[in-house]
């Protein structure tokens, strides 16, 4: 290789390989002065059947509804009733309380693993509010808010995290890989972005059957680099599938910043343009903007006007998971100075500004959701925690559900396991 570099075309400057580097590393002072949020209310709201051709600017701007005074402004204001806004706020607070509690449970050794969605609560809860209950969601592992917004049982979710006797998934899945068909919440997989083409397939099936249900998928910006993202976008566009493809751009994929998914050169919403899809780029910490964008995309899908790709611009306020320490790769100031703020604080400010809420009620609500979580936790832990080990589920259940009916080789292996353990006295 050295010979080749020296041997040919020496009059040209040497090529250089660009390896992206985030602006701020641990210890760096953070300055977002050059970050252009755009003004709330400034982005137009196209007709729901608008051609993707006329929506190119939407991929590069930021749909925002809540201004710095907590007022809802502009054409994207979904004009929700105050009760609905407060309910949404409560679900966001509940999600944060749930996360805090289970994060601590992991630290206490009650389970093996946990992932918070702190700072991203609006992207799942406001979206779930804008969808119909029977629309099928294909989430990644950071959309627990959908389950909460759909009123799913906290105890049921915790039992999954603890892999205990109450875990409907029988201790087979790592914590947070929920599955709740009744809540329109598709089984979570550890393999990134696989849910993307699956959501498109669900939407295609619904369309092929003449149904009115739609599908929505979520993935992180890091996962957009997977081939599944490309296949899903292609299928969605080709068949005009009634699907909403959400990209939660929280700036970080574990330790690698969004530049490693292509963010230095374009936006994730702009990917839509190449596929001929409607694309929206939305303030992900603005619950009203999230609601309005999802509602727009859902109406578009229901009107047979095709799929929408939505980039929700947000910030992963905490570590990737309980196995991650973000102080090793990014500045702690990023979260504090994040120019789009905190989704709960912003919605709270709004409901106070419209006279539907106050600090007292908010404090009472915070206490109430913590109590709700604590009560659920007691109930869940009464059914065991992971540390209770192998006593949770009958061993033979390990061999069930591999197939609809257990074939001979699994029956034999189940028996073998039973015999081995018996002989070993365990």
């Amino acid at each position, binding site marked *: 290789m050295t010979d080749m570099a020296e041997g040919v075309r020496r009059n040209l400057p040497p090529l250089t390989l660009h390896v992206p580097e985030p602006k701020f590393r641990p210890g760096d002072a953070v300055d977002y002065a050059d970050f252009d949020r755009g003004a709330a209310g400034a982005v137009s709201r196209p007709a729901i059947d608008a051609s993707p051709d006329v929506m190119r600017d939407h991929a590069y701007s930021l749909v925002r509804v809540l201004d710095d005074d907590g007022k809802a402004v502009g054409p994207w204001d979904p004009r929700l009733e105050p009760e609905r806004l407060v309910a949404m706020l409560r679900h966001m607070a509940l999600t944060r309380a749930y996360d805090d509690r289970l994060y601590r449970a992991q630290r206490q050794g009650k389970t093996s693993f946990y992932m918070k969605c702190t700072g991203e609560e609006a992207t799942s809860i406001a979206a779930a509010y804008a969808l119909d209950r029977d629309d*099928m969601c*294909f989430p990644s592992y950071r959309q627990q808010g959908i389950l909460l917004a759909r009123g799913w049982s906290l105890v049921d979710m915790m039992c999954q995290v603890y892999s205990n006797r109450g875990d*409907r*998934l*029988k201790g*087979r*899945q790592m914590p947070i*890989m929920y*599955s*709740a*068909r009744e809540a329109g919440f*598709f*089984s979570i*997989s*550890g*393999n990134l972005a*696989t849910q*993307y*083409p*699956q*959501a*498109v*397939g*669900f*939407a*295609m*099936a*619904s*369309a*092929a*059957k003449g149904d009115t249900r739609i*599908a929505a998928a979520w993935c992180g910006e890091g996962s957009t680099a997977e*081939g*599944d993202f*490309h*296949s*899903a976008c*292609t*299928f969605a566009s*080709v068949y005009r599938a009634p699907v909403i493809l959400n990209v939660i751009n929280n700036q970080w994929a574990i330790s690698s910043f969004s530049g490693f998914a292509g963010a230095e050169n374009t936006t994730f919403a702009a990917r839509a343009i190449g596929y001929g899809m409607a694309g929206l780029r939305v303030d992900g910490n603005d619950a009203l903007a999230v609601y309005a964008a999802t509602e727009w995309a859902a109406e578009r899908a229901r009107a047979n006007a095709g799929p929408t790709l939505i980039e929700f611009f947000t910030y992963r306020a905490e570590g990737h998971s309980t196995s991650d320490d973000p102080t090793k790769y990014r500045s702690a100031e990023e979260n504090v100075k994040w120019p789009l703020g905190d989704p709960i604080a912003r919605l709270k400010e709004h409901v106070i500004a419209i006279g539907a809420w106050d600090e007292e009620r908010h404090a009472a609500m915070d206490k109430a959701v913590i109590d709700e979580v604590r009560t659920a936790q007691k109930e869940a832990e009464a059914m065991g925690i992971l540390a209770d080990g192998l006593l949770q589920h009958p061993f033979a259940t390990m061999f069930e*559900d*591999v*197939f*609809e009916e257990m*074939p*001979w*080789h699994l029956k034999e292996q189940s028996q073998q396991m039973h015999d081995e353990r018996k002989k070993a006295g365990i």
Partner: protein
Amino acid sequence: MNMIQAINSALDVMMARDPDIVVMGEDVGFFGGVFKATEHLQARYGKTRVFDTPITELGIIGVSVGMCAYGLRPVPEIQFADYIYPALDQLVSEAARLRYRSAGEFTAPMTIRSPFGGGIFGGQTHSQSPEAMFTHVAGLKTVIPSNPYDAKGLLIAAIEDNDPVVFFEPKRIYNGPFDGHYDRPVTPWAKHPAAVVPEDYYRIPLGKAAVVREGEAVTILCYGTMVHVAVGVVAEMGVDAEIIDLRTLVPLDIAAIEASVRKTGRVVVVHEATKTSGFGAELAALIQERCFYTLEAPIERVTGWDTPYPHSLEWAYFPGPVRLTQALEKILEA
């Protein structure tokens, strides 16, 4: 019927019976498939049930998983088994695990059809036999027919099965049984009894092998094209071999295998796929575990060599009559 017609008939019968069945894949719609397996289906059942897809195997299988979540029963086609690899993540991590990881909340009742196997000068990427990659995956069933009658009955059973089934169609025998004598004219299916295929619904249960020829001297375990190679060699040699067409690799008909090996004491395993970690290794291990004391000779494996499938050297690669004859001579003398 030849094998293509039998497969087409199975799809036709099932689409008429069950409105939730959809057929999709590259070129399967208007054109009817590059091997014509889906001919006339789009005209008969409409474009929302039989349609062409973009060229993305992971997309085809991923979308199929989502269709299953809705409640459909997709029958996606992968044009050549050699091109199934981009879909491995969706097959292995998703379709195969869905029932297990959701404790039965979601299932993937899909049948992935794909032409496979060599003997057609297909070179490296139109000849492979990747069945061992799928038999290794918990949650997948793997089926390989060897004649038109079985192809239709097994495909119907696969489509009705509530687990994901990988259905490999040996394309060398689409038009006629091939005994490995590449220098002789090909016999069309018309002269073979298994070409008599009912027009209507019938099924052959998955997990059941077929005894193609009863015998006492040696057991030959095979599937797909190699069934016909075995039949030809046994007739030429005049050996009293028992030939078992496995038909389903997972779940395997272990009872049929054990019964035969207990009778003969000698086993030759034949497959086109490469040898190392091929399905033959699993068969040999199972027989060793379960029939060790009845074995009178080491188990022989006649397989493709551990190389990519070559183009011009195809007949040196393909495990044909010469190699099977020598393996049988060796095991019968042992």
